[in-house]
């Protein structure tokens, strides 16, 4: 759990972060979102004490962060940044093993852990293990960055616009990867982004900051359907509000329990129950159909999604 309690950071009289209170539940993904200068990165960097707050406290699974010496604290917190910051003179293996090495793990254990993480991040261990960062693509570098952050199995993961510098396709792939890793590891994650789709896609709780102040915190649905003021409405909604609402719902929520479509059923066209309605809508339009069969993870029929039901809410 990460909890900000009345946290402020002042620089020369002006507030970078102003009285922020925000909680990310154990095992959840919390998102700090806002425009540049909103204080979101400053807030994040106070968690691992790269910056110390002027007032207020930050609680981390029972203790406050200032109770631990920064060096010890940081070895328990994974940190991923936009510019990745891999050590250029170390191989991928040595980079990922950074924190385990600092903690004095035995070599064999580090090697096994690295192999496990490369596997988790879908990197070919034999191909990349002994490479240097400059020999990898941007997407591969960021995967290694994520693996490095996860290496010592930290309590929490901090991510500062981790995918901001990547092309849209790689970014989407890595977002899916983070969702998958989160599902696997149940780590508490605090993510900073200015990308609304990313926040809605990954966040369990989202805090919208503006000029250092918390404007509204809540679930993606709260922010879309019950904005506290016009700023929130404009920020999240705009012309894309409808599509964003579809983005946060899955096929499972509005499908009808009919397991067959008029006798003809095409296995290949079935969509998983966890697919977002936004993607399902896109598929319907692309295929020119108004119904899609829905299946579970194992491919067993669950029901049918109707185009007409997407707008009923």
């Amino acid at each position: 759990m990460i909890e900000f309690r009345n946290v402020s950071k002042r620089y020369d009289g002006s507030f970078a972060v102003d009285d922020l209170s925000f909680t990310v539940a154990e095992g959840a993904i919390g998102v700090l979102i806002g425009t540049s200068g909103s204080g979101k990165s400053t807030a994040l960097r106070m968690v691992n004490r790269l910056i110390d707050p002027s007032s207020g406290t930050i609680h981390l699974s029972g203790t406050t962060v200032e109770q631990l010496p920064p060096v010890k604290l940081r070895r328990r917190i994974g940190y991923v940044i936009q510019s990745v910051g891999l050590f250029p003179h170390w191989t991928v293996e040595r980079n990922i093993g950074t924190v385990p090495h600092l903690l004095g793990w035995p070599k064999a254990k580090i090697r096994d852990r690295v192999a496990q993480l490369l596997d988790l991040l879908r990197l070919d261990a034999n191909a990349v293990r002994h490479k240097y960062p400059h020999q990898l693509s941007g997407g591969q570098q960021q995967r290694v960055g994520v693996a490095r952050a996860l290496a010592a199995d930290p309590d929490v993961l901090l991510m500062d616009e981790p995918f901001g510098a990547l092309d849209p396709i790689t970014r989407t792939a890595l977002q899916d990867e983070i969702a998958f890793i989160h599902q696997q590891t149940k780590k508490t994650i605090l993510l900073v982004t200015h990308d609304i789709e990313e926040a809605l896609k990954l966040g369990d709780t989202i805090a919208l900051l503006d000029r250092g102040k918390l404007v509204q915190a809540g679930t993606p649905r709260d922010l879309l359907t019950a904005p506290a003021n016009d700023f929130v409405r404009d920020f999240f909604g705009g012309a894309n509000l409808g599509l964003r609402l579809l983005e946060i719902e899955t096929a499972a929520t509005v499908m009808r329990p009919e397991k067959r479509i008029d006798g003809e059923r095409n296995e290949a066209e079935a969509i998983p129950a966890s697919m977002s309605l936004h993607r399902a809508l896109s598929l319907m339009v692309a295929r020119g159909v108004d119904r899609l069969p829905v299946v579970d993870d194992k491919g067993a029929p669950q029901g049918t999604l109707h185009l007409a039901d997407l707008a009923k809410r």
Partner: protein
Amino acid sequence: MTTNGRHISWYADPALGAALLTLALVFGMPLLRPVFAGAFPELDRPIYVGDPFWLLLLSHLGLVAASSVAAGVVGIGAGILVTRKAGRSFRGTIETLAAMGQTFPPVAVLAVAVPLIGFGAWPAFIALALYGLLPIIENTVSGLEQVPAAVREAAASSGMTATQVLRDVELPIAAPIILTGVRISVTINIGTAALASTVGAKSLGLPLIVGLNSDNIAYVIQGALLVGALAITVDLAFGRALRYVQRWKVA
């Protein structure tokens, strides 16, 4: 110098070849007597015999090594100091002092040092160490500053102590640039050490100076050949070391 990553076998290394050539010149110079005698028939003594060349070489190397180690320790130390938070305010002062050290011609430093500490190797050591300081400080500072901020932040946020960040991350990444500074410093000092013979320090400059004083061109050529061969050997050896410290760049 090649900076690509190809592995060079030790026997094909130009640094080794240059070292062998230098040694051949040092020990084989007397064998060249007929050549010098033929070229300068007017000279009574066509080969320098004041001291054996190997002794001059050792003494020259010792002087350069001692002054370069001193300049390296002080220069790298100062470079590290002024790039730390605590030492940032000294930066201007230290860079000015180092620049002044290089502005004074070594001959002037020698001339000032002699009345203060007398003739011999000491004034030469001091002049060379001061003269070699600037490139090392400058390159240490720029090498450390060139470490990307994201890398430094990643190191700190991994839970490295300040010492670990410096030793394991900053210095290895800055090493090629720092080593280049040391290389410049040493190469300059090999040439400058020849001047040390004017204040009574033994070096390969001795045949040069004696030759100039006594109109013996053969001595001058012998001294110049040896200083040149030594400078090339050391420079090539640095090239080799440089390839080693930046092997990760070309992998």
